[in-house]
């Protein structure tokens, strides 16, 4: 069995675990994904010491692009301390020795599951998203051969009918995460299960967003300065989660994505989903500077 503690000494694993040829393949596919924004590019997705479905897509993308000078941040649902984030961070640190950080602004690569950090990302940063289901049309069409054809012909009418029937049935579109969005006016993507709150952050951003789906073996990308438009009817505009009148219980921030927590007595509490941002706001309010680092 693979023992991570002894990788460097005994097994002599390559930098960032993957061998150079595998990395090269992932890089090639990533470049193709960047060249055709929103298009899902198949890749080999070999076995890793983490089971498929636990972030192996994002992990392989990170392994392929990371260098010894990179500063890494890994988050799970916005939190640096989530079990998935901790495991992935440990594996990457063990096999690369790179510096890690909690501070969003310090990181050069941010690998994330289901959130985009609240702090605006810069052009010199790359956000790598772990994707469970890369196919936005999976809602409406089970056959992969069919969905490929639908993408090729830009036939997204069935997704539109899905949205239409959603409004008929519920009075509004009920998709919470995975909101189908059109990239560069051409390809429909599943922006991974980020909440609606984060979808506008993809639009015309300064940052490169890479999406890796390990189990489904697909890589796709939203390059910087590329339009990402959530599907919306002319008269039923897309809207993000509404946290009006609520603030984070911990840091007091408003205007951040909040987790809803039941207090066990019938009430609800709201706490920031982005743990680093919450820490930073709290530290600033309390006058301390201990906002990040390990």
């Amino acid at each position, binding site marked *: 069995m693979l023992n991570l503690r002894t990788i460097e000494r005994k097994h002599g694993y390559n930098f960032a675990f993957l061998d150079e040829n595998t990395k090269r393949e992932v890089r090639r596919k990533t470049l193709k994904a960047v060249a055709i924004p929103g298009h899902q590019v198949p890749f080999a997705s070999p076995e890793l010491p983490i089971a498929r479905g636990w972030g192996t897509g994002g992990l392989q993308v990170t392994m392929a692009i990371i260098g010894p000078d990179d500063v890494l941040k890994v988050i799970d649902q916005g939190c640096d301390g989530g079990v998935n984030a901790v495991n992935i961070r440990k594996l990457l640190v063990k096999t690369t020795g790179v510096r890690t950080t909690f501070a969003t602004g310090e990181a050069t690569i941010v690998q994330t599951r289901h959130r985009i950090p609240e702090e605006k990302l810069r052009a010199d940063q790359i956000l790598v998203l772990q994707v469970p289901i890369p196919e936005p049309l999976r809602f409406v069409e089970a056959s992969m051969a069919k969905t490929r054809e639908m993408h090729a*012909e830009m*036939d997204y*009418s*069935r997704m*539109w*009918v899905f949205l*239409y029937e959603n409004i008929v049935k519920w009075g509004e579109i009920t998709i919470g995460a995975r909101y189908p969005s059109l990239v560069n006016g051409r390809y429909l993507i599943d922006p991974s299960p980020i909440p609606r709150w984060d979808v506008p952050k993809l639009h015309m951003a300064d940052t490169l967003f890479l999406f890796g789906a390990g189990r489904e073996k697909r890589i796709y990308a939203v390059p910087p300065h590329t339009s990402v438009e959530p599907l919306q*009817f*002319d008269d*039923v505009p897309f809207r993000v989660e509404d946290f009006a009148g609520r603030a984070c219980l911990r840091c007091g921030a408003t205007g951040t994505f909040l987790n809803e927590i039941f207090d066990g007595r019938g009430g609800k509490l709201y706490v920031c989903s982005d743990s680093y941002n919450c820490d930073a706001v709290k530290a600033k309010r309390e006058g301390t500077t201990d906002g990040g680092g390990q």
Partner: protein
Amino acid sequence: MAAANDAFVLRVNRLTKRFGAGCPSCYALTGPAGETNICPRCGSIVACHDVSFDLEEGEILGIVGESGSGKSTLVRCLYFDEEVTDGEAFLAAYGGGRVNLFAATAQKKRHVRNHLMGMVYQNPLLGIKPHFTAGGNVAEKLLTADIYNYAGIRTRAAALLTRTEIPRGRMDDFPAYFSGGMQQRVQIAKALANNPPLLFLDEITIGLDLSVQARVLDLVKEIQRELGIAMLAVSHDLGVIRMLADRTAVMKNGRIVELGLTDQILEDPQHRYTQLLVQSML
């Protein structure tokens, strides 16, 4: 002949559809003369060969023929469900009627199909999705034609379904639970949704009981009168053709053997096969 009329909606030239590899003598050895459409030398099926006609503005052209005569394949080719082997088709509403549709890319074909054509299949479940609501099915056609206004789609779907006698209260129900006649009427509403200049009807009354048949045919006739949509109606039933079609083409073994005014075809058939067909009428 082709130069005589420039008011065509759809012009088809020498359409050929062959299933199978084919050989040099396929076309010579098949057809009404040999009473077969299977090439005896290579076994390929010549479903349609050398089919040419003009569909004029606002007319209904009937295509009649026995099972296996190639009439459904012809319509399926024109609606791009099948790739043609050879031939040309021109649509007045596309590229000024000078661009061969069969040579267009898949994406262009889809555009033409979504914006300029409607199709009513023999089996309603080919044309509608039973697990989209009736309104959703109509909406799909509107959405493919790039109409993205929710209230507008709702209003238009309600109007079309009312027009095809689907009660307003069933608009948000699933056609899976509708009767065959109702499903067919949903399909017609869907086909009409984007106001296409051209509508294909493929055996639309088959499998419906007589009173429902009559109502569906009445509906088609009324719609044609109101909207002036040109239609290509395929049927093996001369009664349906007599009621719907202004002109009729008779197909046999993949060829058009006779084309003329419906009355003339029924009263004074020229081709031997047409005579047989008319005599067989109940």
